[in-house]
């Protein structure tokens, strides 16, 4: 995640009222020269557009089926591609015979992989392009591949065993030079502070438990893929991506062509959740292959992965086995935390999970962290919505709950006692009130009957990331119509609408008066949408560009109103003299007086300011019902309390929060990538055996946003995509414990695991 510092940029100093409305703090921030004073607590009550609910601009297109996703693009003469994936998990490709496929009428181009080593089932082997998807499917079946099979290892715990087949030879493993590799285990990454041995010696109570999470897949509904179209040396790619600029960079490098010759477009995107940040996918070069097929065939090629390949090669969230040891004094004050994590990102590294243990309860003086990545013969992981954090928070927050039980303390009181964030401190009570925390079982499982209800909670954390290398263009046309241009893409977050709201606030018009044009490398550079970075990166550039355009408009209007431009303000579609609002022009009248055709302003995001908080807090509560006879868990209600600076559009922001709880509940209760230990391929590469939460499983979900002037940028706004999924798994596990007295330490919390935990609890 880019967080490049522009610290060298000359600064201007602003004083602002920062933090929570209930507890304002005077703060001095150093903004880049030419930047604006950040919207702060004084601006909060004055906002006309920011912080209000706005329906999304592209909603009508999406609900009528008119929104064109990359998958919907159809060009004249377009061919349909199909990828062929390896059918074995480990071995060597001896030969690929495409002659039968090539001979099939309608087949126009064939591609074969250069790599000969197979390390996971599904790895790219060959691809075809044909005049119809049906013929392409036939051709794919005619590709004959001979393999020399090798032993494989399918799963984290098996890969850690002595004598397990190794995925990589020691010198081939994708690890940093400072890391050692033993068998399939790479690491550790070490971290921490203080002295845990001394800390545990001070503890009155200590718990140590191990938790396990399986691999989850992203399962976006639109699979990975592109439509590639060459016109001479100009390449246009319609990509299902979270970063059009990243696709351009990756394809230009892979194809060894100039970036200026590559245009990447993504108008609407059917879900990515972190798996669509690169040029293709982590485990498939699908976009590059499409470009090669198109070049070869001399025709545009649409190559979308099928659902099976999507599940195998486009990324997943690493599995994890995490041991947490916590020591505390009798009053609950933490004295030491020891955290050891093994995770598998398949054939990739980067299975770390320690983000939450680093960030939560930072007052604890003694912390020791060891994180290991374990290789398995499975598709490489990709960032999945707060990568590593939902896993880490599940372990830490389950352990905190177990500690509370042992201390005989209310789990919420234990969190409050050790809280280090003033923002999360302000989030506990609204959440507790909304869920009815006082209704929880004082003694876990202490309710009559086989169906037991319980309430639990857990915390999460995230960060305020920024990419300052972002530009935005605003055009006010002579007829008063307004356009916004950003190369960043709307991945479903409501980005189009968010930037229109910011520009509308600055220009004094309505978001519906603005047309947002996004998702195109012909537009000013925007960030890849990952890490909840987009709002913080783009919103301040929008405000700056809109402010520049407004100043130019005021110059025009000032002449007509016989005033000084500095005396003017704009609000409600009018430009007026602040001291005498009767002296006014409508926005359109003002625009009609401009000397040329258009006021056209492009602004670059300035450096990140000091923030009130450099982290994002968040806490979550869940109420569940457990059928102790069948082991079935139903979530009844969840409440998420979150902060993202000033939320720009509360309608779409809350939608993301609620969506995170739903996706998190799905991970907690249902999702499990199962790889067959005998053949090493995924048993459930689909959407019926890889179950995700359905309408029938739905619960009441409530989002509470706590606005705070976080400063950091001139809008005080930050992203909310990831933070609310971090606590969900732990909140549900802790609610199950409160309902039943049974602790489920392995996900997904399916009936068999719940029944086993109930039996264990009964035995104990």
């Amino acid at each position, binding site marked *: 995640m880019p967080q490049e510092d522009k610290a060298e940029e000359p600064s201007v100093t602003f004083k602002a009222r920062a933090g929570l409305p209930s507890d304002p703090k005077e703060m001095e921030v150093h903004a880049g020269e030419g930047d604006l004073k950040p919207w702060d607590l004084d601006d909060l009550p004055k906002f006309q557009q920011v912080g209000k*609910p706005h*329906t*999304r601009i*592209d*909603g*009508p*297109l*999406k*609900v*009528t*089926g*008119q*929104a*064109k*996703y990359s*998958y*919907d693009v*159809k060009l004249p003469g377009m061919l*349909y591609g199909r990828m062929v994936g390896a059918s074995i998990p480990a071995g060597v490709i001896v030969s690929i015979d495409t002659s039968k496929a090539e001979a099939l009428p309608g087949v126009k181009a064939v591609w074969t992989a250069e790599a000969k080593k197979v390390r996971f089932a599904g790895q790219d082997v060959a691809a075809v392009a044909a005049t*119809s*998807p*049906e013929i392409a499917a036939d051709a794919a079946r005619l590709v004959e591949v001979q393999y020399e099979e090798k032993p494989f290892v399918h799963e984290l715990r098996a890969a850690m065993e002595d004598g397990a087949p190794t995925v990589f030879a020691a010198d081939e493993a994708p690890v940093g030079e400072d890391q050692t590799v033993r068998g399939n285990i790479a690491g550790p990454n070490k971290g921490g502070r203080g002295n845990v041995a001394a800390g545990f010696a001070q503890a009155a109570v200590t718990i140590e438990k191990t938790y396990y999470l399986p691999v989850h897949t992203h*399962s*976006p*509904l*639109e699979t990975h893929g592109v439509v590639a179209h060459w016109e001479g040396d100009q390449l246009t790619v319609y990509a299902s991506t979270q970063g059009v600029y990243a696709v351009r960079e990756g394809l230009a490098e892979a194809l060894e062509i100039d970036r200026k010759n590559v245009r990447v477009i993504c108008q*609407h*995107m*059917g*879900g990515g*959740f972190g798996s669509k940040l690169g040029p293709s996918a982590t485990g498939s070069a699908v976009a590059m292959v499409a470009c090669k097929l198109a070049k070869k065939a001399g025709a545009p090629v649409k190559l979308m992965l*099928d*659902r099976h390949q999507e599940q195998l090669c486009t990324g997943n969230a690493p599995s994890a086995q995490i041991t947490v040891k916590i020591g505390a004094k009798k009053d609950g004050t933490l004295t030491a935390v020891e955290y050891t994590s093994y995770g598998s990102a398949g054939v990739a590294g980067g299975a770390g999970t320690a983000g939450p243990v680093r960030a939560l309860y930072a007052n604890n003086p003694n912390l020791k962290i060891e994180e290991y990545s374990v290789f398995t013969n499975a598709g490489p992981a990709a960032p999945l919505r707060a990568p590593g954090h939902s896993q880490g928070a599940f372990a830490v927050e389950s352990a905190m709950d177990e500690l509370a039980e042992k201390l005989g303390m209310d789990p919420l009181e234990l969190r409050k006692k050790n809280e280090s964030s003033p923002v999360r401190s302000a989030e506990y009570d609204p959440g507790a009130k909304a869920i009815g925390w006082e209704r929880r079982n004082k003694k876990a499982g202490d309710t009559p009957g086989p169906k037991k209800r319980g309430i639990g909670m857990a915390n999460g954390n995230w960060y305020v990331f920024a990419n300052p290398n972002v530009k935005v263009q605003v055009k006010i046309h002579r007829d008063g119509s307004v356009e916004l241009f950003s190369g960043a893409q709307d*991945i*479903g*977050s*409501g980005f189009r609408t968010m930037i229109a709201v910011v520009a509308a606030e600055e220009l004094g018009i309505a978001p519906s008066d603005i047309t947002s044009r996004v998702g195109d490398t012909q537009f000013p550079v925007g960030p890849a949408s990952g890490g909840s970075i987009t709002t913080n990166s783009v919103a301040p550039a929008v405000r700056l560009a809109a402010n520049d355009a407004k100043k130019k408009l005021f110059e025009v209007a000032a002449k007509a109103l016989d005033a000084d431009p500095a005396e003017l303000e704009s609000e409600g579609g009018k430009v007026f003299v602040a001291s005498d609002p009767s002296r006014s022009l409508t926005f359109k009248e003002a625009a009609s007086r401009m000397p040329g055709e258009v006021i056209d302003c492009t602004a670059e995001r300035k450096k990140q300011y000091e923030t009130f908080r450099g982290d994002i807090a968040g806490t979550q509560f869940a109420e569940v019902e457990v059928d102790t006879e069948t082991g079935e868990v139903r979530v009844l209600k969840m409440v998420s309390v979150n902060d993202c600076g000033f939320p720009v559009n509360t*309608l*779409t922001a809350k*939608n*993301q929060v*609620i*969506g*995170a*709880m*739903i*996706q998190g509940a*799905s991970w907690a209760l249902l999702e499990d990538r199962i790889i067959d230990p005998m053949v090493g391929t995924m048993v459930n590469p*689909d*959407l*019926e055996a890889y179950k*995700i*939460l*359905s*309408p*029938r499983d*739905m619960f*009441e*979900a409530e989002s509470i946003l706590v606005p705070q002037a976080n400063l950091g940028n001139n809008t005080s706004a930050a992203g909310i995509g990831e933070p609310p999924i971090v606590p969900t798994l732990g909140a549900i596990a802790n609610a199950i414990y409160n309902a039943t007295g049974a602790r489920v330490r392995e996900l997904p919390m399916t009936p068999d695991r719940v029944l086993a935990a109930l039996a264990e609890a009964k035995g104990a």
Partner: protein
Amino acid sequence: MARKPPPDDGARAPGFSRRTFLKTAGAGAAVGTVVGNGAACTRKPTIIGPGAAPLTLRVNGASQTVTVEPRVTLLNALRNHLDLTGAKQVCDRGACGGCTVLLDGAPVKACMMLAADAEGHEITTVEGLGTPEKMSPLQEAFVEADALQCGFCTPGFVVSGTALLAKNPNPTLDEIKDGLAGNLCRCGTYSRIFEAVQKTAGRG
């Protein structure tokens, strides 16, 4: 699923469809055993395919001819041959509802049906329910409630919700969940979708 029986296919003589074949052969009989064995056959079966053959589909109130191989699904015929891309292929096996369209008013999964089998039926896609300028009440309610994020599942939910409300104008929350149980959303917009359906029912 309440689906109207297919109309008599006489109009399409001398062509032959898979549907007529099944009807004359007796639905449910194993095809392999019936071919050429037709004591029950009143007409001599004609084989279409394996090459492309013309089909006439009634889509959103208009008749359209497509020339497709008999194996082409209704979904691929709509998307690749009639440029109606609202319905999406997501799971390609009837598990997610992303391709839901109405067949004589009843929701069907267009990835699970051959285009040839849809001949003679009224097909309604999400595009037939409303336009961005003139949305249906349910479509408007989806926008108002922000019952979508990435929007890829949205056409399927709008179609399923439309079918639900046509059958049951005042559904309870549980009936809404049941009516939409065949559709999946990955972004997690279910509660907003329920709200949109409830709002529309309340206005009805």
